[in-house]
């Protein structure tokens, strides 16, 4: 039994079918990378896993417990499944420390003192403890994204979903964010990430899935996917990536 099982998941927006039967397993402490062209459903799949979007068919199981469909407690699910977005989405009216401690104090009912102490430990780890009282708009994109990761980590999730978290960053800021993800992978955090950073996927992924037209078209260890892709579509996609100088 895998940690996260996605079985035949369908998702449509009106007449447009985004996911047409996605099957995907994530084993605990694994890092799984989703690659694929824009609009292939990577972000939608991630949003379905933490219940931000409802699915129309199939099922999603986390630790063998069904977490999709009617009757599930979405708020409880999202406490266990953290997500980080491409556009950071920090709360602009709150300082960094308030961003990080909001959910622990309001959802987990942790005391402010305890939550702030834990938040400072996390902020120290990413080297931003000096920015704790700053507001997000005063931080660089890379710093904002690092805070967004810490904000999700403060809920101590079992699974982290990272949705193209470096796509909105200037190139020189990408590494500071990826370093954190690398550290998380080393610590054994289970992660599912949608990414265009192929080099990074090659390095950290236990498994790479190529998503195409709403299904997992091909999956395998990174060496195989990037070195010897079996499917025509995968080859074509990777060729374009190489031509763009991104691999």
């Amino acid at each position, binding site marked *: 039994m895998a940690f996260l099982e996605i079985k035949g998941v369908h998702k449509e927006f009106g007449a447009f079918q985004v996911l047409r039967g996605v099957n995907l397993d994530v084993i605990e402490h694994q890092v799984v990378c989703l690659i694929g062209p824009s609009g292939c459903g990577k972000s939608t799949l991630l949003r379905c896993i933490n219940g*931000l979007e409802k699915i129309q068919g199939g099922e999603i199981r986390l630790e063998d417990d069904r977490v999709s469909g009617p009757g599930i407690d979405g708020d409880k699910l999202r406490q266990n499944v953290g997500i980080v977005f491409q556009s950071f989405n920090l*709360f602009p*009216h709150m300082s960094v420390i308030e961003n990080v401690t909001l959910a622990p104090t309001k959802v987990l009912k942790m005391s402010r003192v305890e939550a702030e102490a834990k938040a400072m430990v996390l902020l120290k780890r990413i080297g931003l403890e000096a920015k704790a009282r700053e507001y997000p708009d005063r931080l660089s994109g890379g710093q904002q994204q690092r805070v967004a990761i810490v904000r999700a980590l403060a809920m101590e999730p079992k699974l982290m979903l990272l949705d193209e978290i470096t796509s909105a960053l200037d190139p020189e800021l990408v590494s500071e964010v990826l370093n954190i993800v690398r550290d998380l992978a080393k610590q054994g955090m289970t992660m599912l990430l949608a990414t265009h950073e192929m080099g990074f996927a090659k390095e950290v992924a236990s498994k790479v899935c190529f998503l195409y037209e709403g299904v997992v078209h091909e999956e395998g260890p990174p060496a195989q996917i990037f070195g010897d892709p079996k499917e025509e579509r995968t080859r074509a996609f990777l060729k374009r990536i190489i031509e763009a100088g991104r691999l």
Partner: protein
Amino acid sequence: MTDFPAPSQHLPRRSDGFSVAAMLFAGLCVLAAFGTTRLMRGALTGLGVYASAWEIVFGLTIAGSGTLFWPALRSLVVTAKARAARARNDIVELRIETAAAKDHAFITFGWGAFALCIFGFISFVLTNDAAVGKTFFLLPLIQAKWWLVTKQFLLNNLFIFVATEILVLVWGLMVALARLIPGKAGRPIRALAIIYCDVFRGIPAIVTLYLIGFGIPTSGLSDLIVPHIVGLFIDLSAMSVAEVRAVTRIPVSWWCVLALTLTYGAYVAEVYRAGIESIHWSQVSAARSLGLSYIQTMRYVIVPQAVRRIMAPLLNDFIGLQKDTALVQVVGVVDAFNQSRIIAANAFNLSAVTIVAILFVLITIPQARFVDKLTERDNARMRAGG
């Protein structure tokens, strides 16, 4: 002139006209100052309050308007320099001097217009041997009655709008949230909120005041309910009918608070809604994905951001509300306006009403500055590079 190097910009137009016009305008303003001071001298003599000390004021007024010649003169001087630059083919210098000449001329125009408006107002007040002034600004009447009017303003207008504003802030938010409630089960709640807003934004405030202020007490609805509530705290059974009425009667101004809350609640709900909808949905995603419930998301993430954005339109509605407290006289509340009309009718003079106008302006200004300050503070704190 044609032997300039091919310019990448147009040659500036000559500023001579501006400079001359500035001189003429300054002259006109000084003439207006003379005229106004003559009018003042006549009016003050007529009122029997003329003293030679006033001549100092008149002298200063004329001298003050004479300072308008200073920028006009500078404009002329700089225009002369521009003409020289044009003769030298110095195109850069020409642009700089022409721009400076226009700036000086416009300083004359701007301050001159300001001075003319003031002279115009003074002349208006003093025309016809200060008859206009006496109608609106009869000082003895103002001195005698200002406290009476101000007292009614504080007791009624101020009480009504402060109480209403507090209620509207809460009620408007409740209606806005009801209108935005998600899901299929929320549909009837949304419908109720929409109907409420449509109805109470549609009815003129004065009509709502009339209907509620007279209607509810007349219909006996309050007599049906209030004695039971008061009865929980006070033993009414031993009291006479008159005594019971004395302790259970709800003052009319409270009904005014209710009516204005219903009217302005509908406006403010729409302002809140616009504010909430202006917050990008990704903020909801971010909050929900941390495990916050819908209500927590609204409470901690969306509404605080929305409120910061709607401060200015909210103040607009509040100022509208404050002014509408002058309507409560239709149900017989003796507010500042009603009081001033009584005085005006007795004295056959509008100066008491002027007091009301001044009072309303005076309470508005500090609020506007307060909201400016709040917005500024938020911007300095939250925005980059502040």
